[in-house]
């Protein structure tokens, strides 16, 4: 198993936001984490990558416990993360943002990320902080892909983006996961989009998993959709 979470819980300060989350992810598998705002999806991801204050349970990579609970330890094992605020380095140019990722790449591959995001290709010299929200999100994904990861964890792929950009990003992700063998954990507000990209779905409510299964089965289930809709 590439990635295993056993009874993971976490949060900030005195507040425990997620509890008892367990799942497994093999190489090339894709998992969407769904749920309404405020159910703890972001906290779950931050807990998994070692950015939350509190942590309980266990995370294993390749069946081995982590040497240290830090994002850096995961990076060295080929696991990278795109936060919901995109986390681009605002004063670095687009090219520098990508270059930085290449420096810490998990394996040498030199994937042409600009081919996936042509919008970025002619903005390489622009400081990332001056990009629009959609471009910043593209850059964040491109940068994550440039680390040549085995597992990509993305928080809020489509947040605040135009539908056309969302389409392009989704296609790019489908390509790299189906063809490139990249595993993916995706949090998104948009269940249809998430279920189109990911084979499996996990639904959270108040910090706990309340439903899980294959996208195809759950996507056809009205009661399941009710958990997500207005």
């Amino acid at each position, binding site marked *: 198993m590439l990635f295993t979470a056993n009874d993971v819980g976490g949060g900030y300060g005195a507040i425990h936001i997620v509890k008892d989350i367990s799942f497994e992810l093999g190489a090339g598998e894709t998992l969407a984490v769904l749920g309404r705002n405020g159910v703890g999806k972001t906290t779950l991801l931050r807990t998994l990558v070692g950015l939350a204050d509190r942590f309980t349970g266990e995370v294993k990579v390749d069946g081995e416990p982590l040497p240290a609970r830090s994002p850096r330890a995961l990076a060295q094992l080929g696991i990278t993360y795109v*936060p919901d605020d995109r*986390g681009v380095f605002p*004063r670095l140019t687009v090219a520098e943002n990508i270059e*930085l990722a290449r*420096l810490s790449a998990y394996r040498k591959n030199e994937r042409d990320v600009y081919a996936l995001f042509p919008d970025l290709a002619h903005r390489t010299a622009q400081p990332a*902080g001056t990009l629009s929200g959609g471009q910043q999100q593209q850059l964040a994904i491109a940068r994550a892909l440039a680390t040549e990861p085995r597992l990509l964890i993305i928080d809020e792929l489509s947040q605040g983006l135009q539908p056309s950009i969302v389409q392009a990003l989704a296609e790019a992700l489908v390509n790299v996961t189906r063809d490139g063998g990249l595993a993916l954990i995706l949090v998104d507000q948009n269940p249809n989009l998430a279920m189109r990209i990911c084979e499996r779905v996990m639904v959270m409510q108040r910090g706990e998993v309340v439903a899980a299964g294959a996208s195809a089965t759950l996507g056809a289930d009205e009661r399941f959709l009710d958990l997500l809709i207005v």
Partner: protein
Amino acid sequence: MSGWIQFLLDFVWLSAGLALVAFSLGLILGELKIVNIAQGDLMMVGAYSMYAMRDLPFLVALGATCIVGLLLGFVLERGVLRWVYDKGFMATLLATWGVGIVLEQGVATLFTVSQKGIDAPLKGLIEIGDVVYPTYRVAVTAGIVVLLALLLLLVYRTSIGLRLRASIDNVEMASVLGISPQRTFAMVFSVATALAVLAGALIAPTIAINPTLGLSFLAPAFFAVLISKPGSLAGPVVGAVAVEFTFTLLQAYFNITIAESVLFGLLALFIVLKPQGISWSWKPAREETS
């Protein structure tokens, strides 16, 4: 004519030293988000290190002093600063102040408070136009300019610099890309300390060495950092040149104390107009987000 040459030479010599100190200060503020009040005392340590090794060849002593600086920085970061990062701005400020007191008093205990001096390795004078200027100052100025150019190249053109700037921009995201915050902090503070110590060592032959010599550099160095955008590394260098230019110009007309007072007044005015500092680059930096 000779007045202007004299002015230019003084200005270049003084701004070179200040730029080095301000660069180091800006590095610490940018990466560690710490206002390092001990900066002047680090310079003082450099001067005393040179005094302690005054019998060695100058360049050997200079190299040894740099190593002293690196070690001192490492020890201070690991021993003191690391424990106060999460205690807020005031705690870090007070901790560096405490470090400053300890350095000052430690040196005073070791060397007594009486003034010391060391000889410049180059004793000659150079004629530039009608003005005669000490060769040592010209050589040191040139050396610092080259050093700063190399440092800025390192920061803006190499992968080490790229990692550093990324870490300054967003330390959490940098760690996601495999850049360890702890190591970066320790490295940055060590190098910044070594630079401040080096600056002190270089000016040591031109001043009277005493435990409080760093104080006179502290305020202008802070001014230089304060008028540039937070987190910028080239900014403090340009800021230092601007501050020193204004200051040298003011000194041409007023005595030094009045010049400093006017400079301080100008700084206050600047802070009122531009509380966030100014960006010296032509590209707009990102707006503040809430």
